[in-house]
């Protein structure tokens, strides 16, 4: 009987309060690179976006590069000026933090690199130069295509994201039952050890 209530009581608690268990509030941040522009979004794991959140960008060495705010829909945007790793940090306070890294090789090679790596070997410099001149020839169409592809992919992905969120909400119920099962099982194991100790003492 006790075991029965062990499972039922917490479930009833959630049901009685009529609250869906989906409102987890883990902060999720993502960033996409388009040319030198870094676009990103900040939201909670239930799909709510976070407007007016402070987004700070650091170099991999910990030097603060810039900070910006998310707009009304939780999106932020900034221009990378150097081709180095960008560590994007969001701190919503009270331990709600998230971190995304945009690595240097995601950014276009036209940007200046980190001070230490800028002194490249002469052959490398010429190679970069020739790549740049080649890129300049086809840059207009190439850029446009890239932007179009990025936009199209983002559009296609959105319904999938929604389905994933719905799926996660469903899985959560299984997780609840699984967790309660673990607690039940662990209680049983402790019972076993306590009983064995008692029998030995007798």
């Amino acid at each position: 009987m006790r075991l029965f209530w062990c499972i039922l009581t917490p479930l009833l608690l959630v049901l009685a309060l009529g609250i869906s268990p989906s409102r987890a509030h883990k902060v999720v941040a993502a960033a996409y690179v388009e040319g030198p522009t870094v676009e990103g979004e900040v939201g909670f794991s239930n799909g709510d976006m976070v407007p007016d959140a402070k987004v700070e960008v650091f170099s991999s060495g910990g030097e603060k590069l810039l900070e910006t705010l998310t707009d009304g829909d939780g999106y932020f945007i900034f221009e990378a000026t150097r081709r180095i790793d960008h560590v994007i940090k969001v701190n919503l306070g009270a331990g709600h933090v998230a971190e995304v890294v945009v690595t240097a090789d995601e950014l276009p090679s036209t940007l200046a690199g980190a001070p230490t790596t800028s002194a490249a070997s002469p052959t490398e410099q010429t190679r970069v130069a020739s790549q740049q001149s080649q890129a300049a020839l086809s840059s207009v169409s190439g850029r446009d295509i890239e932007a179009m592809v990025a936009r199209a992919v983002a559009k296609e992905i959105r319904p999938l994201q929604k389905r994933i969120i719905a799926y996660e909400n469903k899985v959560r119920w299984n997780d609840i039952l699984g967790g309660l099962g673990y607690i039940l099982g662990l209680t049983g194991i402790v019972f076993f050890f306590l009983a064995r100790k008692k029998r030995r003492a007798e």
Partner: protein
Amino acid sequence: MHVVDGALSTSVLIAGGVLTVAGVAVGLRKLDADRLPQVGVLSAMFFVASLVHVPVGPSSVHLILNGLVGVVLGWSAFPALIIALLLQAVFFGFGGITVLGINAVNIALPAIACFYLFGGVIRSGTPMAAMIGGFAAGACAIAFTCVLVSVSLAMSGDEFLPAAKLVFFAHLPVMAVEGILTGAAIVLVRKVKPDLLSLPFGSPV
């Protein structure tokens, strides 16, 4: 209230881990077979209560119910809470594995403090006094947890006062809800199942 991985400095994490190991050891030593079902039920309750969310501003806070766990279980709150916290981290992504220790300290120490502060009046006071004691235990446990979370954030570099204020004010509704829940639960338990509060106060088993 669950601090996530990466928000705290290593020294805070280690301190939390050490305190938790000690707390769980004390809790397990004071645990006997008769009271084990209570530990299991309250652990399960704590595990699920975290899914009950109260929206506050852009974020939301969830029930913790560590006051209720504390006044019923005393020191055995430590093992009950650590199991539930571990499962929450694994299943729901609340908190994390590296911050498990410090989260357990932040939630279990206030629970035990409430046992010593309000356990007596809840067990032997008049029904009215027990209800008020339950309300105070539910609300104070959250307030203490807020302070401990702010302290652990402060020791990791956050400014103490702004962080503390933010956490504290965000959890005012939770304090009210948990105070009422704990008070009501205590009154109900004293009426229908008094042996749930059988843990003798004064010499906590």
